[in-house]
């Protein structure tokens, strides 16, 4: 399914979408740079601790719903809030071609 079908016009990611990093995009923990970085063709994005926890779970196997459930349970946080943050991050990464659905 194309990325377009898995996000609506407001950029909300479908609960059934299984986000994954595309070929050529990797999440790496760099000791020298002091944290997680998302590496892509000619681009480097620093991932803060929260973003890294989300992106680490985007393996193409877990659905958005499952990722949100996992994070909500792990951090004992309100599911609605987690869902909004995860959906926004993933939609933004899809826009930059740093994530596939």
């Amino acid at each position, binding site marked *: 399914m194309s990325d377009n079908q898995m996000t609506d016009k407001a950029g909300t990611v479908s609960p059934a979408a299984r986000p994954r990093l595309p070929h050529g995009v990797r999440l*790496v923990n*760099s000791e*020298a*740079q002091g944290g997680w970085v998302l590496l892509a063709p000619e681009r480097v994005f620093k991932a803060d601790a929260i973003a890294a926890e989300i992106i680490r779970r985007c393996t193409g196997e877990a659905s958005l719903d499952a990722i949100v459930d996992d994070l909500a349970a792990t951090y004992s946080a309100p599911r609605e809030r987690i869902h909004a943050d995860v959906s926004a991050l993933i939609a933004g990464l899809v826009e930059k071609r740093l994530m596939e659905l």
Partner: protein
Amino acid sequence: MDTSANGNNVRPLGLLAELTHRCPLGCPYCSNPLELDHRSDELDAAIWARVFREAAGLGVLQVHLSGGEPGARRDLVEITAAAHDAGLYTNLITSAVGITEKTLVLLADAGLDHVQISIQDSDPASADHIAGYKGAYARKKASPKQWCGESCRSPSMP
């Protein structure tokens, strides 16, 4: 370089590795239009492996394997593997001339993350003129499909 741990720690992100100055093309804009370092003066794979490890230690995240034409190195797969093993994101900057599908598969297995093909001009005749190599443009344009099959996203080129 500021190596303090106060949060203003600025470290290099990328390393451009000119593996060779040999190249089948002769683009006049290139920093190496003529032979600069002779083949016998090129750094060997073991030295590059050390350089990659040291670079990674400094904070470098991505290495751009370039030249000259990096495909002119017979040990390109070994060098690519060394960069990958050092934890670097590896980008091959190539003319695409002389990189076969077989080589590309070996490079991918060695951990190559990305390939960047140089294009001299959007006009084929002008591109070949700049490169000093007849048919270079057509070969560049055909390379992605030759390497990856019909599923490869076709570049928007005339």
